[in-house]
């Protein structure tokens, strides 16, 4: 701080501090505190705000437990509150997306870091970047076209004789959502993993080869442990983006695939109940953070490794 004052003088230092303060206080901290505060208040008509009924309660959070539905897994049937069910499925399918993204991205990340001719690498990276510049809504829309009942995927599969009748892809639970999320976020896994593998000394791999290690053991004992921070940051990114996505589930979802963000959206836009929407949004933030922290503890990764 002293250093900054000496270099840039009191005026510029104050200006920079004010800019940072505006960002962190007005755009991050106070909005989140307001969200938290509002989530404990009931949804009331304007005239009653501040009146006797405007008291703090856990009412909005309790709405999560309303409306039980009957479900069955493996023959066991049980009842579960519908919003809890939505939340659990959102988390579950976000994890599925994260794992599939990793499985798809890892071979390519290794290829980019260790196999490809370094001279053609910039061209490859440029090609990979093209879908990233095309906006998310259009990428989801592209899959909407592909997966349509009379769309190109069904036509192709029928033409090669893999299926007899067209399949309703976007009416099979979460299939469409998972396909769309993977396509949208797989690159957020690829680049961190690539960065991590790239910093591995190739001599280590060659030494292991010379000593007779089979290829899977080289990956398991050398490359994967080295790439762990990259895998962790890619996974956190993909998981949080998937769980927080509203576009992809809304475009590619079926009648039976409700995403938790869609529930929040309905409280906010359809019911106009901002207070309950706040409570649900806060729950999403809190629980996702908890899950990420838990996963990082399980895999023994530190936050400082991720932000590198």
């Amino acid at each position, binding site marked *: 701080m002293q250093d900054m004052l000496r270099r840039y003088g009191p005026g510029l230092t104050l200006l920079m501090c004010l800019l940072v303060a505006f960002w962190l206080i007005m755009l991050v901290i106070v909005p989140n505190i307001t969200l938290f505060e509002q989530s404990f208040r009931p949804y009331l008509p304007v005239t009653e705000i501040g009146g006797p009924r405007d008291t703090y309660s856990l009412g909005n959070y309790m709405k999560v437990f309303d409306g039980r539905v009957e479900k069955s897994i493996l023959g066991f049937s049980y009842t579960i509150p519908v919003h809890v069910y939505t939340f659990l499925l959102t988390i579950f399918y976000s994890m599925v997306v994260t794992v599939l993204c990793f499985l798809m991205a890892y071979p390519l990340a290794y290829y980019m870091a260790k196999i490809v001719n370094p001279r053609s690498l910039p061209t490859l990276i440029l090609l*990979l970047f093209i879908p990233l510049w095309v906006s998310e809504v259009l990428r989801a829309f592209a899959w909407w076209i592909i997966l349509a009942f009379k769309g190109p995927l069904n036509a192709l599969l029928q033409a090669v004789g893999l299926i007899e009748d067209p399949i309703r892809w976007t009416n099979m639970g979460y299939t469409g959502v998972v396909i769309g999320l993977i396509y949208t976020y797989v690159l957020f896994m690829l680049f961190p993993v690539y960065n991590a593998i790239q910093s591995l000394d190739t001599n280590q791999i060659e030494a292991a080869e010379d000593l007779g290690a089979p290829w899977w053991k080289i990956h398991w004992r050398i490359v994967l442990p080295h790439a762990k921070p990259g895998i962790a940051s890619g996974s956190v990114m993909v998981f949080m983006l998937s769980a927080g996505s509203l*576009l992809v589930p809304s475009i590619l979802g079926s009648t039976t695939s409700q995403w938790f963000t869609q529930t929040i959206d309905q409280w906010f836009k359809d019911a106009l109940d901002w207070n309950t929407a706040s409570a649900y949004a806060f729950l999403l933030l809190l629980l996702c953070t908890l899950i990420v922290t838990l996963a990082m503890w399980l895999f023994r990764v530190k936050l400082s490794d991720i932000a590198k």
Partner: protein
Amino acid sequence: MHKLRQNLSHLYMMLFLLYLLLPLVVMSGAAFNDSKLPSIVPWKGWTTIWFSEMIADQRMMKAFVNTLWVAAAVAVISVVIGTASAILINSISGRARTVLYGMMISTILIPGVVIGISTMIMWTQLGGLLFGPDTRPWPFIPGLHLSVLGQVSYISAMVMLLVLARLQSFDAGLEEAALDLGASHSQVMRRILLPHLYPAIGAGAAVAFFQSIENFNVTQFTRGGADTLTVYVFSKVRSGITPTINALAFLLIMVTLILALVYEVNRRRKARIEAAREAEARRAEAAEM
């Protein structure tokens, strides 16, 4: 065996690229199909009607202009905030640095839904507190300016990371020397620090601009009645679409491709010059021996 694995990995790379790019080709192709529904099968013949319909679509053009304004505003504000934050983070240390840095980074991970709702609620509540609920003046009503503020809250962190990385290669001794030679504080900033940071600032502005165009979650909750392109496309996709969206997608993809091509040609030219220079140096060295 080794050879086989190598060929398999080349094949995998090809398949992956195909997987990434083919959906974009399908989407672009549907822009030229003379069919009421956006698809490439069945092919009903070439047409460019969807492009003229797109230009006639007033709402889309309005949304497009809005998007550019929002993106420009986000780019300017987050570059200023992000650069200031990076300089601040770079010149403090210890616990304060860890806490501030952690807070800045965490904004990237906050779900957009949460950012959108919290920004909306805070500004409308603040307006209600200051002016009463019915007579809130401009900045306290829903609208695209709130979308800008919401987007800035996490895009600033991305700019901050880029500028901070660039600051690592900055020699603070240059500033000392300038101060010793009698430069003023603002001269140090303008003539020494900022020129070193320009590449990162430029990259930050580009990232901020495109992140803003992409953004849906924050905009959806704060926009009031205004449209941006993303929101408009979304509403079109949900409520019976014509292939005008495909025409738009085709144009956007073309712009991306042209920019990518220019970048690639430029890079290759530079690489060639570099290689020629190296060869020259090697020849000179050999001649000396």
